[in-house]
Each structure stands twice: as C-alpha cells, then as structure tokens.
C-alpha cells in the first residue's frame, strides 16, 4: 500500500506552479498530503490566496497527472489550516531567488489588527534577488500578483517582486 502513496508523490513531484514554473507545488506547500482514505487514495491540496487565478489550473494539473499515471485518487481541497508562506521549503525559496523573486520572510508574530496597522509596513529589509543589496525600497504593496509586492533595488536599479509573507 505504501508503494501507491510513493508512486503518487513521485508523479506529483514534477508539478510546478503555473505562474512561477521554477517552484514545485510540493515546495510551495500546496501539496499537503497523500494518504489512504475510506474510499481509496486521497491527495490533499491547500489553496493559496482566495483569488489566486492559478488554483483552478493547479487542481486540474493534479487530477490529470494522477490520471495519466494511472493512480485513481480523490483530490481534496482543504482550507484549514490556512496555507502559509512558512510552509515553503528552503530549496523552494532558493529557486525563487534564482528566478528573480525575493522569497518571503517568515510571517511576523501576529498582533491584533489595531496594533498591526499602527506600525509602519515592511520594517524588515528585502534583499535584492539580482545583486544581493539590502538597499531596496518598496514601490507598491501589490506586484504582478496579489502574493507579491513590487520593490526596487537602489544599487543595481532593477525592479523585482517580493513574495509577501502570508
């Protein structure tokens, strides 16, 4: 029985994010579990942002990959616990950086909303993924997608995306 689980993992291992094709679903923390359920094999995925347009594609990719591999399984979309960028693996973060996206910092300790909003945003520095400089500024809270903010490097002058903590 373990072998079916292993086969499913290895088939799904190759799947990448449709918008950031260098990082796998497993490294992103979207692919949560492969397990035996009451009605057979279950593959558990957890969606990222509520509005992420890639999630539909990701679910389709998971289904068709399992089908192609001849592994019958039920795909379960699980909301809780909510996806967090803290689930992203170190290798995944390194791949993001190499791709030109600054990887997320660890999510900050959660304060109540009043305290959270009273503090200025982005106290932490976000190093430039191109030249490594810490001399960067945020240009916009939202970059090309909701999960990223737009930054600019003051040294190499390149703009870049920062994958925000979630």
């Amino acid at each position, binding site marked *: 029985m373990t072998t079916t689980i292993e086969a499913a993992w290895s088939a799904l291992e190759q799947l990448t994010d449709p918008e950031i094709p260098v990082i796998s679903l497993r490294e992103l923390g979207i692919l949560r579990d492969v397990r035996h359920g009451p009605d057979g094999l279950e593959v558990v995925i957890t*969606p990222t*942002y*509520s*509005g*992420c*347009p890639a999630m539909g594609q990701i679910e389709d990719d998971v289904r068709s990959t399992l089908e192609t591999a001849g592994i019958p399984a039920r795909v379960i979309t699980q*909301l*809780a*616990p*909510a*996806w967090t960028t803290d689930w992203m693996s170190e290798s995944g973060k390194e791949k993001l950086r190499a791709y030109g996206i600054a990887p997320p910092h660890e999510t900050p300790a959660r304060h*109540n*909303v*009043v305290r*959270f*909003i*009273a503090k200025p*945003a982005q106290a932490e520095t976000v190093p430039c993924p191109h030249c490594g400089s810490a001399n960067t500024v945020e*240009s*916009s*809270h*939202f*970059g*090309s*997608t*909701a999960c990223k903010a*737009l930054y600019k490097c003051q040294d190499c002058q390149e703009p870049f995306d920062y994958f*925000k903590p*979630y």
Partner: protein
Amino acid sequence: MSAATDYLLHLADNALVLGQRNAEWCGHGPILEEDIALANVSLDLIGQARLLYQLVATLKGGDCTEDKLAYFRDTHEFRNYTLLELPHRGPLSGYAQGDLDYSTTIVRNFLYSALMALLWEALEKSANADLAAIAAKSQKEVRYHLRHARDWLVRFGDGTDESHARAQASLDHLFAYTQEFWAHSPAEAAAIEAGIGVDVRTLQADWDAIVDAALAEATLVRPAVGGYVTLGKQGIHSEHLGFLLAEMQSLARAHPNGAW
C-alpha cells in the same frame, strides 16, 4: 440552516460587490501600480466571495451553485452594505460616468477593510468550521488591503491641497454609510444567536481606534454622522446596485450554463 446561509450571503455579497466595483479601475487606474493593486484586491475579494457562495450552495443543496448565487439573483436579494455599491465618484468630481474619483475608492476600501480585518479575525472562532476556515484565510488578505488603503489615505490627506480636499470630501460623502455596519439585521442577529456570526458592535471600539489614528495622521476630520441608516444588507439598496449587477450578470444571463 437559514441563519447560516443568510449571514454567509451577506458576507459573500459584500466581497463580490466591492470586488466588482474595484475591478472597474482595471485598465483605468490613475497609475499603473494602482491599476494592478486594485485588480489584485478585487481578485482576493471575488475569491473570498466564491468560497462563501460555494459554502452556501453546499448548505442549500439541490441545484444551487456559486454561479446561480452570483449571477441569477436580483438587486433585492443582495445583502451587501450600501456603502460598497456606490460609484467611485463623490461630491467633488461630478456624476458623469467618466468622472471617477480615486479618493472615493481609497476611503471606502479603508473603512471597509478596517471592519473586515477585525470581523474576519473574530470569525475565525465561528461555530461554523467552514466559515472559520474561510475567515482564517481572508484575515491574511484583508490586512494587505487595509495597509494599502491606509497608506493612500494618509498620502492623500497629508498631500496637496487638492488631494486633501478630495479625501475629506470623500470621507464626508461616505462616512454616514458606515452606520449600517453597527445596526444589526435580522440575519445577523440570528447568526450571532447561533454562534455562527459575530456581534460587530463588539468590534466598534477597535474600528474607531484604527480610523481615528489614520485620520489623525492624514490630517483629516472625522465627520459627525446621523440621520438615515442604509439597509443594503436587508435588500433595500441604492439605485446604483442595479447597474452594477446588470454589467456583472449580463454575460452569464445571455449564455446560461456557458463554460469557457
């Protein structure tokens, strides 16, 4: 069951209607970064609405679907706050379709996001586990929306004479609509009774604190409110919602069951 679905529809309609409104800036934003930011905020809101509609459809059963709820209900069946359906134009910018005023957008997003940041957090403890799960995701997203709107509010208020005047006028125009936040509808009262919903009045002091701190930093004056309290969440809407729905629903209604 209906206490839950009525309450969930209120939350879903809020997210969908504001998501649709903000999406009107897509391709028309005042600067490219804001065009993209508003589109992303809209995606989050519409995504939250979808999760909530899917949950309502599951609870209602039968042939109910998220699309039926979004595209095949009419104005009087929508349960959103009136604030969220108003156009992006206020008293300073005139009322022509093209006269969109970004300060109206920012002030509204700020007032609503401040509420939702508090409400989603409180709803993480809802007796409905599915709603609690949606709340846990949404509270992460709305904090970014709130940060975005607050930063621009301060920039406008503490900016030029023109931006200050527009921000203050938008605030004066919109603030009275926030009275609806605090007046319970029967659906909210039932949901609170069932442990599914949260009594928003318990959040009012925190909302005041967030609003007052931001307005002070923005050198804006909090308007006094009073008078008519809108009833959008009970299905009694302004004339603006019908136009918004007509645009949003026309494609789905012209091609029922269409898929692409």
